[in-house]
């Protein structure tokens, strides 16, 4: 299915927003109905294009947050104060609005539900979005493949999908939240950047040879990938997706 989803040249499609909901004070999920959407694999992204009345156009890439579900898809957009596109997507866009996009894009940063290997997901900030698509695809497939999520966020208020993640955790998913600026009382881990111990806790060392997906800002991804490699993870098993200054 992943292959079918990436074959064929990309063309622009027009989706219709059916719902928007705030995930955090700065992140919003946009639900779209996209006629002609060919389906997607967890980890893929779309390009979104906004065009002004005078013809000026700006384009950005956003990860798909939802598992494959016909022509319905969800994006979660982090609003950047000085951004050009995200303030519109995560602030102005409302149900009924059209949105131009193309996708699905990317045949590499994908979780393949047929792969029996355990999976270690490492998210920094809104880097959780494509990893959430993987968690949702796993849940939709009722797969029993072991997953561990290590999610670095500035504070509890910045955790996207907090309620859904708590539910998955109660259902047995191994979730570790790493707070970099302020941790809630009693979290047992002082606030601070991600460490090797966060990544290899429990039985998740390199000897288990998990498939590893790391997504976040460039600095976070580089630091996490270096920690994983230094801990003995095979660099060939670590897939990364960085987002940076072209976001927004």
């Amino acid at each position, binding site marked *: 299915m992943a292959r079918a989803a990436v074959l064929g*040249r990309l063309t622009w499609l027009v989706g219709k927003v059916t719902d928007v909901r705030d995930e955090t004070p700065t992140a919003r999920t946009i639900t779209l109905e996209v006629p002609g959407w060919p389906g997607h694999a967890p980890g893929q992204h779309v390009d979104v294009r906004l065009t002004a009345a005078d013809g000026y156009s700006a384009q950005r890439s956003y990860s798909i947050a939802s598992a494959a579900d016909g022509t319905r898809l969800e994006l979660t957009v982090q609003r950047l104060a000085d951004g050009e596109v995200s303030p519109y997507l995560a602030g102005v866009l409302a149900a009924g609005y059209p949105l131009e996009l193309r996708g699905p894009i990317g*045949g590499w940063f994908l979780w393949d539900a047929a792969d029996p290997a355990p999976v270690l997901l490492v998210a920094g900030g809104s880097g959780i979005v494509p990893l959430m698509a993987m968690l949702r695809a796993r849940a939709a497939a009722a797969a029993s493949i072991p997953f561990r999520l290590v999610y670095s966020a500035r504070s509890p208020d910045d955790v996207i999908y907090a309620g859904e993640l708590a539910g998955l955790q109660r259902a047995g998913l191994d979730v570790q939240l790493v707070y970099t600026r302020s941790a809630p009382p009693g979290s047992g881990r002082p606030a601070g950047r991600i460490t090797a111990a966060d990544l290899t806790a429990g039985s998740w060392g390199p000897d288990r040879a998990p498939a590893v997906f790391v997504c976040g800002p*460039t600095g976070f991804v580089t630091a996490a990938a270096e920690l994983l490699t230094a801990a003995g993870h095979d660099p060939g098993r670590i897939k990364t997706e960085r*987002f*940076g200054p072209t976001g927004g």
Partner: protein
Amino acid sequence: MTDYLDGNVLGGTLGELFAVDITAARAQCASCGNRGAVAQTLVYPAGPGMVARCPACGAVVIRLARGEDRAWLDLRGLSYLQLEVPPGPEPSPAV
């Protein structure tokens, strides 16, 4: 300019040009011989186009620019691309 992204970010523009996903293709760096997915290259997007560098040696492997009605693709930093394609018929013998 030190901020870079992954080769994944080339997917949209390359997907406009080619029917197979180039970011998942394996590529060999013409400078050092390193092999890996195009998605693993380090992409510097700040210029008028995007410049992808080899993650092993830093050599420029791909340059891609999209203009109003044309695109430029410079692959001379690669010695080859290996693409996964759906199974097809055996090639016919040359006539």
